């Protein structure tokens, strides 16, 4: 399977979708002009991945800023992965936040409350 890499800009994140390894990464800033057109293809790839997922899936989220429209999409992404966790696959979300960034820490904790997936919190 091919690896999809999207290089980030000042308003869109770096995205790596390595469906062969089961590793997914989002980093940088997310406030795209059109959240639907940016994340649409990403969601589609993830939707395809969860049809035949790896035994272990790792999601790394290291965003230093995302707007509220992106926060909704991040939840949609996590819900996809929750589906395979419920099927007994191992899914871990690594949530990175800057040490003094309480809002980002709290955002991670909230996602962990909403979706039934294992979260590991890390500072950077």
């Amino acid at each position, binding site marked *: 399977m091919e690896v999809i890499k999207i290089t980030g800009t000042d308003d869109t994140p770096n995205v790596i979708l390595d469906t062969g390894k089961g590793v997914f990464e989002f980093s940088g800033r997310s*406030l795209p002009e059109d959240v639907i057109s940016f994340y649409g293809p990403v969601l589609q790839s993830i939707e395809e991945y969860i049809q035949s997922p790896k035994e272990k899936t790792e999601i790394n989220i290291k965003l230093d800023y995302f707007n*509220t429209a992106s926060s909704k999409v991040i939840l949609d992404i996590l819900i996809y992965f929750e589906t395979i966790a419920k099927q007994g696959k191992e899914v871990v979300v690594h949530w990175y936040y800057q040490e003094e960034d*309480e809002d980002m820490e709290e955002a991670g904790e909230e996602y962990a409350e909403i979706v039934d997936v294992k979260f590991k919190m890390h500072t950077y």
Partner: protein
Amino acid sequence: MEKVDYMKLVYQFHKDMLANKFTLVYEGEITHQITKAFTSLTENKMDSYSEDASMKRKVFHVMVECLQNLSKHAEDYKVLNGKGYSGEGIFIIGRTGDCNEDYHILTGNIIQTAKVPEMEAFLKRINQLDKNGLKELFKKQMREGSLTEKGGAGLGLIDIARKTGSKLEYSFIRIDETNSFYTLRTKIIRNQHI
């Protein structure tokens, strides 16, 4: 017709901005490019006097949400090249507080008078909630809401209230039967205990 003395008017605008401690005033089309330009302008300015990271993040966050609300929810919006939206409105950022230590962001845009009651009820609801109530409302809206075609998630105002810990100040001024002018003031208070 009375002749406008533009030279005096410019000076008056200048004085009004200083007197009100407005650092940026803009009236017109709010696009994504403008959102990016204003946020980076403000960030650079805050860097120039070493504003602390937490205040910078909060101001940035509130600015983005306010500007996106204007570009997406203003009544008078346009679709740009089939992608992205621009709405018309006024956007102001200024300093406030006894020693100018705080910030406030003011916006204004036209909304349909028919939509005022719903909007007002939503703002009232947000203002009645405490920290935990806002958190629950945010989570509920994130779970149950869906993105509009304009990419709105209905989360912006809830998030602003959460991040700033201040009540939202707003008003609706009736222009005529069809249109009203909606103003919003958001305060970002230093050392606010949220």
